[in-house]
């Protein structure tokens, strides 16, 4: 006894949620694929994007400025983080890298809490996008539709950068074999810095773009972080198409499960991840190589 209108609505919901996850996860996956560092501060970057955007919004009243400010600020944070801290960890064991990004994540969150308190802040959607759109099978918040569109555009831009530009080619080569890239005379460290910045920016952009949907608070990043990992693992580490596919799958799993029992939706995600790991060890679209 499936409630069909509900089913379609949830499928659509899953699409929106999945697109957002895909964007954030692409950032994480290219960082891990290129640098070999699993950025446990990625969720915090999502949160920082939201806050930076919100601050910009309060000063200028413009949503576009907020978007740009949020993304650029987080890119800057990513670049600085790589240059000042992460760079010294490439030679150290993996666990140390995990630990330092984990610690940095906590520091970012608590710093924001220190300056802005725990009260949640809302960023209103820009006026043209406020309101509800009738979609036939349901009424859907206009902004969420716009969000879907914006995120898809962002993903396409990211795709074009990765697959159609020279710098993107270098990044993809770095994902495959950074030693080789280095041997070819390309300044690998510049590439790393750039990749970290881009990856962080993806999360930051997602953070501000999502702010009108879920008002921001210091801990918005935590839940997102775990879901992002799951997406990356399902899709395959280091694979941009994998992140997109993984994101969509994750979004749909969450939504469809919540039709039946919302409490189980996140658990199903983990079950799915474990299944993928057991059956297809490198994720759906990943390749052997980085562990």
């Amino acid at each position, binding site marked *: 006894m499936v409630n069909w209108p509900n089913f379609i609505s949830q499928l659509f919901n899953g699409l929106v949620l999945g697109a957002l996850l895909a964007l954030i996860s692409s950032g994480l996956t290219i960082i891990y694929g290129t640098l070999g560092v*699993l950025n446990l501060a990625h969720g915090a970057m999502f949160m920082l994007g939201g806050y930076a955007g919100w601050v910009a919004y309060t000063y200028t009243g413009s949503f576009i400025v907020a978007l740009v400010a949020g993304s650029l600020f987080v890119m800057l944070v990513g670049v600085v983080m790589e240059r000042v801290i992460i760079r010294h960890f490439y030679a150290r064991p*993996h*666990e140390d890298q*995990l630990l330092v990004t984990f610690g940095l994540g*906590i520091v970012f969150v608590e710093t924001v*809490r220190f300056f802005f308190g725990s009260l949640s802040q809302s960023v209103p959607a820009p006026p043209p996008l406020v309101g509800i759109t009738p979609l036939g099978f349901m009424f859907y918040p206009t902004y969420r539709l716009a969000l879907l569109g914006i995120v898809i555009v962002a993903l396409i831009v990211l795709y074009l950068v990765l697959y159609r530009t020279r710098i993107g080619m270098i990044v993809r080569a770095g994902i495959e074999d950074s030693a080789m890239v280095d041997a070819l005379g390309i300044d690998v460290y510049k590439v790393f810095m750039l990749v970290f910045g881009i990856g962080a920016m993806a999360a930051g952009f997602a953070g501000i773009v999502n702010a009108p949907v879920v008002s921001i608070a210091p801990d918005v990043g935590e839940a997102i972080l775990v879901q992002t990992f799951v997406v990356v693992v399902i899709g395959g580490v280091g694979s941009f198409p994998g992140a997109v596919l993984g994101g969509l799958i994750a979004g749909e799993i969450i939504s469809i499960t919540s039709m039946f029992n919302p409490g189980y939706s996140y658990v199903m995600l983990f079950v799915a991840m474990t299944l993928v790991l057991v059956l297809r*060890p490198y994720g759906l679209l990943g390749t052997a190589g980085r562990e």
Partner: protein
Amino acid sequence: MLRRRFFIIEALTAVGLIAAPFVLPHLGFSPTTMNRILVWGLFGIGFDILFGFTGLLSFGQSALFGTGGFVAAYLLTRMDFSSVIGALIIGTIAATVVGFFVGLIALRRTGIYFAMITVAIAEVFYFVEFNPLSEYTGGENGLPGVPTPSLNLGITTIEFNSDWSLYVFMAFWYFVGIVIGLRIVRSPVGAILSAIRDNPLRASAVGHNIHAYKLTAFVIAAAYAGFAGGLLGVLQAFMPPDAFTFETSGQLVMQTAIGGAGTLFGPLVGATVWLYLSDFFQTTLHLGATWKLVLGVVFVVLVCFLRRGIIGGLKDLGLWLAGRRWRGSPAEDAPAPVEVPRLASVGPSRRRNEKPFLGPALEARGLTKRFGGLIANRDINFSVGQGELRGIIGPNGAGKSTFFKMLTCEMRPTSGRIFFHGRDITDVKVARVCQLGLTKSYQVNQLFSRLTPRQNIVIAALAERRGTFSLDLLRRIDRVPGLDTQVEATLAMVSLTARADVPVVELAYGEKRRLEIGLALATSPSLLLLDEPLAGMSPHERKETVLLLKNIARGRTLVVVEHDMDAIFELAERITVLHEGAILAEGTPAEIQRNSLVQEAYLGGMAAA
């Protein structure tokens, strides 16, 4: 590895635990804080064995902590179980069993994926505790009313119901935990765990079933976690659901890193710092919610600058103060004695009582390996007689390394079969193959770089003495029968006795190469594959290594891949030439030198197509 001054550490621990109640309160530690520190410390001993010693970073220990705690609490609160100690033990057993099954799933992957699965498991357990099983676990309320322990000694009953008596109880169990932990770390299993962390590839290649050892480490960590969880419930008279959260796992990881991983005491130190600072920031400095920020910054700073935590930092400080000039000769290659010791002492293993096999020692039939469209090895038929010294040569890209990898079962062939002493080993794993007597030394050194040469050889010899897996957790490593003899003999064979206790990083290249060969020798192989043993050596070193190889060859079958033509023509009885993935020619050195196809392959390469 922990120094071998047995019982000093245990004694110091006991002294510390006894002295703590007299010293720490003056520094602002309340008895409950001290008890909490002990619980985290105990939780951490197992985690340190898993993470610090074996290198497996798990974010899922909370699942086992909670399981042990809730089983114990449930028995005590809902089922009127009378013995607290009994409930704790049952909780520990439950956690151990659960840990076994969780480990089976999680350890299928390594590194990041392993960490991810542990995160997922932690979240799932938390959810299950909260929801479906909330009847038993009290859901978000947890299980209140956990009683304090009492000990019935017949004549009298001791009740541990005040803060200080609980301290005595906890300190006792912590001491037991440390003693067991130290035993484990000093056992052969402990040494192998460290080796797995250092170089899992080689640990497997010298004959250890590393998956089984990792699972052992995981189960040990689960047991400690379960017991600590039970203690938490007793300490608070309340078993909280937060025991299952990701934050609990995260806190454990951070405390261990702060204190120093791989020291067993790191978690205790880390917990002390963490709890003390959190109290200090909140109650004394009234920083309120900022305590977490300060703690986070402290943590990041420590991870950046004190690579091995506080204990590591203290050790370094101690070494620096004590001066470090007690080490032996500088890292030059001390000229090895020209006469090579008699090799009878490192013969093929006495364990293997096979009937002697009369056919070829090693045989490959139709061996092929494809990587996508690239054919690395094409339909190779290869056979080596018993006791033969075979050389394999070929231009770069001929597929020699791939061929070797398949022979030792490090890589599966696309098609074809391999036979060792008549036995089909195609589907056998590398560790087992090594135990059967077939092993390899690597072109690029695969050493246990954090250890000394003696310790390296010990790892290999342990596999030879004990098989692929042995659960001798409580045995002292120096009590393994025959180990010392094996180790000393091997060291002597590769002339490293004088430098046996120098860390590997300080060895000269030639010495490292000899160690590389020594590792393979220590497994008492009957067939040894050597992948470019002379790579990167000076002429003097080459001469000696050739002598060494000649020695090793007596009583064994050797297959050597080499580029150094002079050496290989001197050494080998027969030579096989590989070219573009297939066998081009085979014969005595003289025949090969005269073979025109071979000459073309090396000089031109076009004619063969």
